[in-house]
């Protein structure tokens, strides 16, 4: 998958996205679109800094809103114009930008943009075929639409965090705020579906993503189990309803683990052979799935006694060779340097003025003929004011400077 000179234009070439979304949703959405050729213009301001710019660590080693390493990773390829949305003149400029944009994305609380005269209805009057995406905690309508949340709270409300934990114990939750990046990825998908519709009909539309609903949609099996059987799913650790063994077992060395799962009797037999057919595996309750499922403690104990003295990576190779689904639990440091990550450029390097050869994560979508591209480093705040307010909106160099001096572009 070379990135040099793809013969075909990127899928989103010629698509201009006005990006008001921030933190993790904004960052995910921004690079998924810009990696594939969209011109993503981040509209931000020193008066409302993207929290992601404030998140350390910083490539310079000291707090610096231009040196946040996770901002660098997520905002590769984007442009930045600094507009203070509290200033009426800035709102006028936003309207003019909307008129020349294909897509607008935002994750303000639902009342904010309408209060600035920038509701979908307002913006459609300026740009009739606009595709507008609003991502919020609970959606644009309904009694709870104004709730205030962070990512982990949304997973909690959706019934996701409550089923993460060790069997029979209190929930720990995943605590990784996964509803943020998944909403960003969904929004990227939705924008492309809407672009296809626009190409066919000339019509734009407003897309309402409730992070809460999007998270519940990931929980089809637990929800249907409730609706059909009135069963409430609780945390069961790494156990599985119809696979046993199915767990993560300690290996040699500090915090070293291997995950393994047997979906079939053949895989179980292969595992037993690899373990050297120990006596405990011959016990009556270990002979079939039903028996193993109802004796998870002794099953896990037996397996862990075997894994505990072995290297997780070597054991992975050996069990894979025997046909057993197994994999060492990778921590993020090991993951970055791992041969498979390297082969797929799951992580890669990018020069940024504040971070020479900085580390970023890569492009998750590998398209053979229109591959994603990392072209430019993350922007400074307002770095592209001249290009955007000047070249696109027709302001002169002096006028752009005045906007900056007056704090409209700040």
């Amino acid at each position, binding site marked *: 998958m070379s990135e040099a000179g793809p013969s075909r234009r990127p899928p989103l070439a010629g698509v201009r996205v006005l990006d008001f979304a921030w933190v993790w949703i904004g960052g995910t959405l921004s690079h998924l679109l810009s990696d594939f050729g969209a011109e993503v213009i981040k509209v931000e301001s020193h008066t409302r800094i993207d929290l992601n710019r404030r998140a350390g*660590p910083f490539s310079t080693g000291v707090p610096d809103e231009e040196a946040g390493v996770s901002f660098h990773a997520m905002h590769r390829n984007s442009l930045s114009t600094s507009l203070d949305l509290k200033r009426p003149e800035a709102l006028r400029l936003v309207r003019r930008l909307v008129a020349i944009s294909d897509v607008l994305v935002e994750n303000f609380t639902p009342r904010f943009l309408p209060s600035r005269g920038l509701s979908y209805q307002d913006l459609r009057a300026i740009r009739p075929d606009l595709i507008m995406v609003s991502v919020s905690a609970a959606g644009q309508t*309904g009694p709870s639409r104004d709730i205030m949340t962070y990512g982990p709270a949304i997973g909690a409300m959706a019934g996701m965090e409550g089923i993460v934990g060790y069997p029979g114990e209190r929930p720990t939750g995943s605590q990784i705020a996964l509803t943020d*990046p998944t909403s960003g990825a969904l929004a990227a998908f939705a924008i492309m579906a809407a672009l296809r519709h626009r190409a066919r009909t000339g019509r*734009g539309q407003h897309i309402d993503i409730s992070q809460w609903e999007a998270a519940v949609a990931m929980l089809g099996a637990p929800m249907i189990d409730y609706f059909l059987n009135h069963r409430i799913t609780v945390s069961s650790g*790494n156990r599985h309803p119809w696979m046993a063994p199915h767990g993560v077992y300690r290996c040699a060395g500090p915090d070293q683990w291997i995950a*393994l799962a047997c979906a079939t009797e053949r895989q179980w037999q292969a595992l037993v052979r690899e373990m050297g057919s120990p006596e405990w595996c011959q016990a009556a309750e270990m002979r079939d799935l039903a028996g193993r499922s109802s004796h998870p403690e002794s099953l896990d104990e037996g397996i862990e006694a075997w894994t505990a003295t072995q290297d997780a990576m070597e054991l992975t190779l050996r069990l894979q060779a025997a046909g057993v689904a197994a994999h060492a639990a990778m921590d993020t440091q090991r993951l970055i340097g791992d041969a498979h*990550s390297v082969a797929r450029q799951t992580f890669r390097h990018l020069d940024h003025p504040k971070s020479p050869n900085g580390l970023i994560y890569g492009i*998750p979508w590998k398209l053979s003929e229109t591959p994603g591209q990392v072209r430019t480093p993350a922007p400074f705040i307002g770095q592209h004011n001249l290009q955007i307010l000047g070249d696109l909106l027709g302001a002169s160099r002096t006028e752009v400077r005045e906007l900056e001096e007056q704090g409209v572009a700040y």
Partner: protein
Amino acid sequence: MESVSGRAVMLELLAESDVLVIDRAPAWLHAHGLDPDFLARAFPRLVVSAVTPFGLYGPYADYAATDLTICMASGVGMAIGEPDRAPLALPATISSYIGAISAAGATMAAVLAQERDGLGQMVDVSVSESLSTLLIGPAAVRGHYNRRARQRFGHRVPGYYPDTILPCKDGFVSLIAIEDEEWRRFVALMGNPEWASDPLFAEKFSRYSLADTLDALIQPWLLTQTKQELFERCQANRVPTAPVNTASDVAGDPHLQSRDFWWTTFHTQLGALRTPGAPVRFSGTPMRARRSAPFLGQHNLDIYCGVLGYSRQELGPLRASGVI
């Protein structure tokens, strides 16, 4: 697909298709004569979307996998659970679901290029890599600069406090009051207890270093209230706290109901079946559940006679020989 004529029928179908979605490892594709090079030559307009555990290339491409092993291979599992205990996988089939969202986006990009250029391509989405980039990528990058892998922090989000799950009267709440003003409003809600005036607790990062102490101080107040009471009181006071809902709480939630979130489809055996609805609301092209999930082969007649133009007589031998 395991029979020779099965492959021939499938090739006929591919000639009529825009997108092929496939979840088999590269070794399987080669063994069945469906390797990417062949498909690209035979069907230049086809988008082939391969969504597999580890992708179509790289040393683990042919590894056997389940949601559990993928979650652990991706780097996500090692961030979930308690520090000194086994890492935990994402529950249910969330890992696969996220791989599917990722693949849906990648496929749409290829479809847009297909409609513009009249040409297809190979789309290779690794579920594991989707998790490694989208879910844990930023934390991995931060860990690289901190020279320390992302750790597990049990029931807390690391770094600041409180962003944690704690018990209340009838279950658990996701207690979040991170920023100064959020914390002050939360302390006021608790009735400004004496202990809260300790300057050690004034700042979110120092609060995190005293998280065990604070859990114990806050706990008694939480235990006097239900998760719904806490949710309502906190939200009314702009404290971003939420209930840890069970499936039954989610099913009965008035907000989700008011947005008509739930879908009902009619299944021949199960009757009316309620499921989660659309994860995305399009104003112009709303997603709909047009039918329930099909039985295996339910639409054979429509596809082989309707799309490929077989006669019913031709279908008989294909059925009898087990091709379909």
